[in-house]
C-alpha cells in the first residue's frame, strides 16, 4: 500500500520535472549565452557606428587630396615658403633688405642677428619660431619712411619690433619668421584644413611678391647661391 502510494507520488511529480528543468536551464543559459551575445552585438554595432563616419571622413580626405592640382600646390608652396621660409633662410632676408635699400635710396649700415644652428629642428612648430635682427641705415626722412613701409610689405614676412630714428640715422629691429613643414602627420583620418578660408591671405602674399622687383630666392635654391653675389652691406 505504502509502496503503491510512493510510486503514484513519484510518477505524479515527474510530470513537473521536465518543465521545471527547462525553466531552470533558461535561467542559467540566458545570462550565460544570450547576454554575452547581446553585449558582443552592441560592441560590433558600436564599431560600425564609429567606423562609418571615419570611412566618410577618409573618403572626403581622399577626394580632396586627389582633386588638388599639383602645379597649383607647388606654386602656392613656393609663395608661402617665400613669406615664411621652412628654415632660417637668413640669405633671403638679406637680399630683400638690400633690394629695398636700393629701391628707396637708403644706405644700409651694420646689421646683427643671432642665427643659431641652421639645421636646428624646433621642438614645437605650433607658434612660428622667429629670429631677431637689427639693422642700421642712413637716409632722408622720406626715404626712411618708404624703406620701412617697403620692409613691412615685403617677403619674407617680418614684424618690426623697434624703430629708432636720430636725424638721418635709423635703427630697426625686427623679427624674421620661419615655419618648418610638419615633421609628422596627424592621424590619417584627421580632416585637411579648409584652404579656401586662406584665399585672401594668399592673395595678399601674391600681391607682396609682385611688388619686389628682383626675384627672391626660392625655397629649393641652394643656400650657397645666395652668397655668390657681392656683399650688399658695407
Amino acid at each position, binding site marked *: 500500500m505504502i509502496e503503491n502510494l510512493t510510486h503514484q507520488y513519484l510518477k505524479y511529480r515527474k510530470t513537473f520535472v521536465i518543465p521545471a528543468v527547462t525553466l531552470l536551464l533558461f535561467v542559467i543559459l540566458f545570462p550565460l549565452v544570450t547576454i554575452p551575445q547581446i553585449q558582443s552585438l552592441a560592441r560590433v554595432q558600436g564599431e560600425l557606428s564609429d567606423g562609418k563616419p571615419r570611412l566618410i571622413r577618409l573618403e572626403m580626405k581622399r577626394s580632396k587630396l586627389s582633386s*588638388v592640382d599639383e602645379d597649383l600646390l607647388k606654386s602656392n608652396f613656393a609663395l608661402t615658403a617665400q613669406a615664411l621660409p621652412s628654415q632660417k633662410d637668413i640669405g633671403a632676408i638679406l637680399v630683400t633688405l638690400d633690394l629695398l635699400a636700393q629701391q628707396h635710396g637708403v644706405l644700409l649700415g651694420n646689421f646683427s642677428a643671432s642665427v643659431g644652428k641652421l639645421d636646428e629642428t624646433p621642438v614645437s612648430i605650433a607658434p612660428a619660431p622667429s629670429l631677431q635682427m637689427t639693422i642700421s641705415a642712413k637716409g632722408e626722412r622720406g626715404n626712411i619712411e618708404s624703406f620701412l613701409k617697403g620692409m613691412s610689405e615685403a617677403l619674407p614676412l617680418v614684424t618690426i619690433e623697434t624703430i629708432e630714428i636720430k636725424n638721418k640715422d635709423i635703427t630697426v629691429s625686427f623679427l624674421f619668421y620661419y615655419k618648418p613643414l610638419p615633421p609628422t602627420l596627424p592621424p590619417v583620418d584627421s580632416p585637411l584644413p579648409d584652404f579656401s578660408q586662406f584665399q585672401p591671405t594668399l592673395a595678399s602674399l601674391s600681391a607682396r611678391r609682385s611688388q619686389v622687383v628682383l626675384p627672391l630666392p626660392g625655397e629649393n635654391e641652394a643656400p650657397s647661391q645666395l652668397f655668390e653675389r657681392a656683399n650688399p652691406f658695407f
Partner: protein
Amino acid sequence: MNEKRQINFLSGVKGARFTERQLRSLLIWVSFLTSFILIAVSVVLFIVGRIYQEQTVTLAQNMKVVEEEIESMREAEILYRGITDKLQVSEKLLKIGSFPVLLFEEFVSLLPEDVVVSEYHFSRNKLTATLSTESLFGLEKFLQDLAMYGKKGNLTNIVVSSVNQKQGGQYETSVEADLIGAL
C-alpha cells in the same frame, strides 16, 4: 484523485485556485515559451551578429584601401598642411606686421612743416619722440593734432614730458604715448 485535487496556489488572491492539472499545464506552457524565446532570441542575435560582422569586415577593408590611397598621397598632404600652416601664421603676421610702420607714417603726417623729428623711438608698444621747432605755434598745433589722433583710438597715455626753449629760438619737446592693443 490527485489531478482533481485543488490546491491553493495563490492563497492570498481571491479565487486563485488551480487544479494540479492546470498548474502542470501552465508550467509546461511557460517552459515551452521560455525555451522558444531563448532559441528565437539566440538565432536572431546570431543572424544579426553575422550581418554586422560582415559589415564590419567590409568596412575595415574599405577603410584600409582608402587609408593606403591617402598614404600614397602623403607628400601632397605634407605640402598641403605645410601651406595651410604657413598661411595661418602669415595671416596673423600680415595683421600686425605693418602696424608700427603705419603708426610712424601717421605720426610723421601730423608734423607741421616747421617741426622736425630729431628722435623717434618705438618699442614694446611705446612711442617716444623728440621734436624740435622754431615755431611755438607749430608745436602747439602738432600737440593738438596728436591729442586728436590719440582720441581716434590708436594712442593712449599721451604725455608731453618736456618743452624746452633752446638757444637760437629753438623749442624742443618730448612726447610719449602708449599704443592701444598689443602687437
